[in-house]
């Protein structure tokens, strides 16, 4: 257990150091903005990784929860005049509640069937955000108020870099705690054998639901941060493509690796920016690189490299 504890702390400390030291190599404010996006999607990916990489349940609709968090943070303050942070919390609670209600029936499904059901759920939410233009501004989107924390208005990319960095480290810490707790062990057990988990006294349906709700809250906080960071919000936050991106981040970075989720997020956020030099071939090259990652680093970037260098991954 001592080893686990130190291990868990290592991830958090390394992440905190990355967040703290990265700005030393940033030549311009633009880099802060890109890194902030990496952190926000990294947070969502960590949550999804708890569901996919640890509990072994797929979701192709998680951007829907990002949408709930984002629109709660956008619509709530605008309609009621209450503080933005309150709506970040309320949106997370709403996401958790919806995940609980939706998860009860659909988590009975397995594999491809679960994938299609969650996909449908994501598309449903995307349609709601697109069509309810009275509230959401429709496909053109809506403006989002600035986040205010203890009288500090978080506005610039540099400020958001720090807020999202803190959220990422917190998210990684909480996820690490969960993985090494009775709930986390039960989730990982279900991934390997549901039938044995049940015989070991685990309420499988309940544990799956717990993982689903927790991952939904992660996505919701990430979605709210994304909206507040950009100051503008369109339904694209909850599009099917976004959901697929989240899944890709988890798989490319490494299922069951918290650090991998950040790496996966970095790959999917930074590469498109870096590849703009290729103009028309940008997307083709991105797709090709993801394929190459999967062929040569099948377990995901972090676990594969960790194995190659003879250490267990985080």
């Amino acid at each position, binding site marked *: *257990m001592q*080893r686990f*504890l130190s291990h868990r702390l290592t991830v958090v400390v390394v992440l905190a150091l990355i967040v703290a030291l990265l700005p030393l190599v940033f030549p311009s404010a633009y880099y802060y903005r890109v890194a902030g996006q990496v952190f926000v999607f990294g947070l969502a990916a960590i949550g999804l990784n708890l569901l996919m990489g640890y509990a072994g349940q797929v979701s192709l609709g998680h951007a829907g929860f990002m949408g709930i968090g984002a629109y709660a943070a956008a619509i709530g303050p605008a309609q009621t005049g209450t503080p933005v942070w309150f709506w970040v919390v309320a949106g997370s609670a709403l996401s958790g509640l919806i995940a609980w209600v939706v998860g009860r029936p659909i988590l009975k499904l397995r594999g491809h069937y679960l994938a299609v059901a969650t996909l449908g759920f994501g598309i449903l939410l995307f349609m709601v955000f697109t069509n309810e233009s009275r509230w959401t501004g429709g496909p053109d989107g809506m403006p989002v108020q600035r986040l205010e924390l203890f009288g500090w208005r978080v506005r610039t990319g540099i400020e958001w870099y720090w807020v999202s960095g803190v959220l990422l480290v917190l998210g990684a810490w*909480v996820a690490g*705690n*969960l993985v*090494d*707790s*009775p*709930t*986390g*062990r*039960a989730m*990982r*057990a279900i*991934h*390997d*054998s549901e*039938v*044995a*988990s*049940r*015989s*070991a*006294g*685990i*309420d*499988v349906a309940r544990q799956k639901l*717990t993982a689903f709700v*927790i991952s939904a809250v992660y996505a919701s906080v990430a979605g709210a941060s994304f909206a507040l960071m950009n100051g503008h919000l369109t339904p694209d936050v909850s599009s099917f493509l976004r959901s697929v991106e989240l899944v890709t981040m988890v798989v490319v970075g490494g299922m*069951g690796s918290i650090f991998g989720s950040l790496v996966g997020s970095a790959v999917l956020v930074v590469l498109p920016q870096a590849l703009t030099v290729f103009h028309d071939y940008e997307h083709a090259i991105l797709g090709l690189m993801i394929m190459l990652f999967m062929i040569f680093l099948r377990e995901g970037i972090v676990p594969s490299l960790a194995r190659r260098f003879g250490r267990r991954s985080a």
Partner: protein
Amino acid sequence: MSKLLSVSDLSISFGGVQAVDGVSFEARTGEIYAIIGPNGAGKTTLFNMVSGVYRPDRGRVMLDGQDVTELEPDRLCRLGLSRTYQNLQIFFRLTAAENVMVGRHRHESANVLAHLLALPSVARQNRETRRNAVALLARIGMERYADTPAGSMPYGALKRLEIARALATEPRFLLLDEPAAGCNPVETDEVEAVIHAIAKDGVGVVLVEHDMKLVMRISDRILVLEQGRPLAEGQPRDIRENPAVMKAYLGEHGAREAARA
């Protein structure tokens, strides 16, 4: 005082095939009760009904006077009935110690919020669960595997690991489905010693096993199934000499040969 696992008239059919038909037996805590029979006799199916994996068409399972027929395996586990599987059901990505720790699940707090925040109580409980798991591993002679991922352990060790995980739930009755299948003679001896120790601790052991020598050595009582129906029940020596049992195993001709030999 000994407790009772009482099965009466259990029956199930799959697509018109009567897999198990009217099987009854009673097992007591501290006793080793074996269920044998030729391939396809319905032993594992019977196990699956007793342990809540299948719902029987007919019949009842009583655990210590309580009707548990319709209960799911996790509920049964919490009432003190656990099992192992014929084809290994191990958590391959977890270490040996973690596998056994999962068995402690029903004894651990289920406060998810505390788990997320790693409150001191959770850390304390984690340490205790781990200590408990390592002690169980030591009992089956597998302490050195504690931090080895189960996926890289030898087969015989995994068979025992599955038993250790089931024991971690602190069952009153333990169903073992072919605990010695695929084990070499040394591993079989180890499994036998473990089963003896479990029964001595007052746990009721019900096992399905093909290794007849092991069954005859270890069992207090034996139930023989043939084509889903009970054929005979009794102590090992009664079963060994029962002509109907011999016929079921060896066929008409073989039984005659055996009788002459």
